[in-house]
């Protein structure tokens, strides 16, 4: 009879045991990588459309910095990159079984991540007050759609990070099983990577 209670020797960070050799990683990690494939396609649709529209009508865009606050967003970008670093440190901590370190670095990641969203919202409010709205031509349409959906993904990421942090405080992670930390980390790094691309093509060009 198929029994699923893991024994003490079983390391949940290994691929499922007792099956034909698959991807060589545990299910949740494989699942997140596969899911990120769909996210790549989603952002491809948005970013690809932006490229097509901009190449056809470059005059619809203002020069960098004229409308958007590049310095503020550059700092925000740096913060997001820092949050990827704190995430890596959180993961490294729990790999060594350091639960206290995990909690610390997770909290840091949550705070920075939430901060990023906060700065974005602040920026949106300012832009709207200055009259730069989604209906402001191709520029407004593409800016708000791309950064808005990215911001939505960051927000979801922050919520998931908060959940993982809560579980960390409940002592649910160990060196033998910290799948949730690694998986949310993968998502978080992806969201960061998308932002680096967006920042470059939306703010700097």
């Amino acid at each position, binding site marked *: 009879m198929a029994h699923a209670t893991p024994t003490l020797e079983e390391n949940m960070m290994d691929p499922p045991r007792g*099956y034909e050799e698959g991807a060589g990683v545990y299910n949740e990690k494989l699942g997140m990588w596969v*899911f990120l494939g769909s996210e790549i396609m989603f952002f491809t*649709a948005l970013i690809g459309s932006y490229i097509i529209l901009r190449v056809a009508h470059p005059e619809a865009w203002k020069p960098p910095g004229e409308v958007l606050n590049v310095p503020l967003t550059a700092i925000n970008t740096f913060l997001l990159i820092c949050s990827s670093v704190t995430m890596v440190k959180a993961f490294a901590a729990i790999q060594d079984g350091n639960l206290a370190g995990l909690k610390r670095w997770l909290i840091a990641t949550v705070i920075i991540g939430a901060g990023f969203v906060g700065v974005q919202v602040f920026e949106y409010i300012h832009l709207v007050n200055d009259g730069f709205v989604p209906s402001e031509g191709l520029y407004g349409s593409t800016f708000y759609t791309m950064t808005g959906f990215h911001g939505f993904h960051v927000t979801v990421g922050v919520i998931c990070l908060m959940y993982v942090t809560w579980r960390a405080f409940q002592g649910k992670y160990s060196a033998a099983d910290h799948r949730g930390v690694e998986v949310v980390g993968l998502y978080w790094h992806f969201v960061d990577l998308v932002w680096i691309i967006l920042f470059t093509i939306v703010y700097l060009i």
Partner: protein
Amino acid sequence: MPTIKSSVAGHASATGEAHTHEMSFLRKYIFSTDHKIIGIQFLIMSLVFLLAGGVLAMVIRWQLGFPGQAMPGGGVLPDTMAPDGIVLPEFYNALVTMHGTFMVFFAIMPLLVGVFGNYLIPLKIGAPDMAFPRINMASFWIAVPAGIMMIAGFVVEGGHAAAGWTSYAPLSERADLSGVSMGQILWCISLIILGLSSILGSFNYITTVINLRAPGMHWFRLPLSIWALFVTAILVLLAMPILSGAIIMLLFDQTIGTHFFGPAQGGQPLLWQHLFWFFGHPEVYILILPAMGFASDIIANGSRKPVFGYASMVFAILAIAVLGWGVWGHHMFMSGMNPTLGTSFMISTMLIAVPSAIKVFNWLGTIWLGSVRFHTPMLHAVAFVSMFIIGGLSGIFMASTPVDIYIHDTYFIVAHLHYVLFGGSLFAIFAAITYWYPKMFGRMMNPFWAKAHFVLTFVAYNFVFFPMHQLGLQGHMRRIFDPNEYEFLQHLQGLNTFISISAFVLFAAQFIFAINFIASWFVGEKAPDNPWDDNGLEWTVPSPPPHGNFATIPRVYRGPYEYSSPLVQEDFLPQNRELPPQPAGSAAHT
């Protein structure tokens, strides 16, 4: 005996059948994490939408067959749709839109992927459940509000979306052009939610097939149904997000005034078409690949013979999936895109006929030298092949860009798409339902009525859709409320009426299937474990299988099509049956 990690099947299969699972009815049948229950939930939901899509088709056919006449029972419809039972042009446009939308997104796709992906994958690879059973449950329950929203569009002001299932901009995004506002918004939101459901399902399937195959289930021992479902899941994963992105842009154009597709401020109507069809073409392969997989499994079983050229069949599935990304422009030959692009898309489209042809030849090769049992699933599977041949060959006409100039947006296209989606996918779905029904419900469907349904459906179906080729060749356009407006179409009224009457017969015949389906669930003959003498792993467990599927994880020794093997007396040889070691040089296979 290998243990199964708790990461595999959530808490639900942790204890399996040694304990009586004290789960409430709600946890066991409504909010179940068991892939088999979820598959059946998708089955019920999809069949309801299949019926609804069929009803919409009947109204369309009424108007085309008996234009301007009061529809029997049409009095129940509000005056915004059909005053005195006479269909209005605006309602007609919504009908064609929603018939396509219901059938593609809420019937065929979930029947193939949501039902059989869910039901078959763990069973046929030897796993106790999907990799992520709770996400699987979420996938179904997210699809339900999407479906409700899509139905709700019929009752809002302005009526339902009426820009075609393809929803071309600018018509779809301007209420002043279409007369539709809320309906189109609901259409958009519904599909975004459904897309999420599909994506959740797809990464579950992919992870499961990669990581949870039973020992010995090498990639090239997988049944073709699983290969097809696996590759389809990859297509769903990659294509649905494109649609979501496009629909979000459309929704924003409609609601917050963005300018993606409206030319007034530099937006491009053609951008919608590129995005939609970049999704849309992989989508149609999503709608046919699982059908091809089921056909392979069932034809091998019915012929009592291995699939001819198994490896080629796998490569053909992969080729179709890969090449399918490069042909989307063939939906846009007349769109105004650069003609040079048209030529390149024509060549890629011609080439994609090749892997489909390989599959047809290999199905023929499977039946050749076989010993054919004509059980109902085999009848449907063979019908699938013969109708798919027609659908595929008709595609060659439209692949030729000059010929497409004439037949684009005519009933020739409608004929083609129905030959591949109904003649192809739906017959394969009937094959799959009749084949796996015993496993799902522990009962046999009544064979006489199942065959009667098959014969009536097959005949009526061809009377409906074959003449549509002729309509198209005479220039009869798509999506037109009253062809009699045009002198050059008036002589086709008789043919339209004939098609409509055949369609009513076709629709009526489906009630035989519906009654058989429902009644057999309660009073059908109890099904044995393996009523079809099939080699698959699902037939080694009871009908229906217990929670957790297998008492012990199976060990696989061979491929799934070792019918009529010289190694044994029976004409089938299950994948997990261990044979004594064979002497060297014997007919042992991988």
